[in-house]
């Protein structure tokens, strides 16, 4: 399940939706990425090419399903103006055995950071700036 939305997500609701999908789930792994207040960040505005983002996330989930034995995966990415402490992204993977959902979850976040058309604009008291791609994110993807 993929959602690109302005609103916050509720992880309990998402887990409930996942749990009814299969009786065989033994491991559910969740990753939440949040806005940090580094350098006195005031806000972060996320812009998104929504139709393409959904398609790219679908591709990433399909790659993960080919590679690991996962029963289901959920990706929710927010856009719009967010503040320190706000949730940005939720990734949930479920599998019978834990290694599968753990690795698939990491794979999805690593790929999401470099493949999905979403951009962050950071607002500070004196300026605002588009975030630049991090070398470390490109390297994280390379390991798969």
């Amino acid at each position, binding site marked *: 399940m993929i959602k690109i939305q302005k609103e916050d997500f509720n992880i309990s609701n998402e887990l409930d939706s996942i749990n009814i999908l299969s009786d065989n789930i033994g491991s559910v792994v969740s990753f939440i990425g949040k806005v940090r207040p580094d350098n006195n960040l005031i806000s972060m505005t996320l812009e998104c*090419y929504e139709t393409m983002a959904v398609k790219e996330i679908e591709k990433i989930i399909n790659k993960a399903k080919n590679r690991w034995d996962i029963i289901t995966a959920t990706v929710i990415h927010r856009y719009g103006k967010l503040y320190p402490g706000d949730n940005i992204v939720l990734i949930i993977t479920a599998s019978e055995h834990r290694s599968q959902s753990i690795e698939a979850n990491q794979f999805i976040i690593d790929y999401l950071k470099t493949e*999905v*058309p*979403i951009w962050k604009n950071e607002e500070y008291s004196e300026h605002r700036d588009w975030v630049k791609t991090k070398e470390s994110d490109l390297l994280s993807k390379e390991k798969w």
Partner: protein
Amino acid sequence: MKLKYFAWVKEILGKDEENIDIPIGIKTLGDLIDWLVSEDEAFVEVFKNRELVKAAIDLELQDYSCSIENAKEIAFFPPVTGG
């Protein structure tokens, strides 16, 4: 053909999308960019370092050598920074 712009590409151009008629002879993304740059100063600024601008044709990321024949929607944007 619809063109879409995101992040600082959008900011430099001052618009997020537009419909354009492409002249005959424009075959690839690279040709399209050359033509846009020749038509409008703002595109000179956007494409002054082409390495930093990604392009998608109908929601698929493509190299500048890719044909734009039959393309419905072409998007230009910086490297992604979501997640």
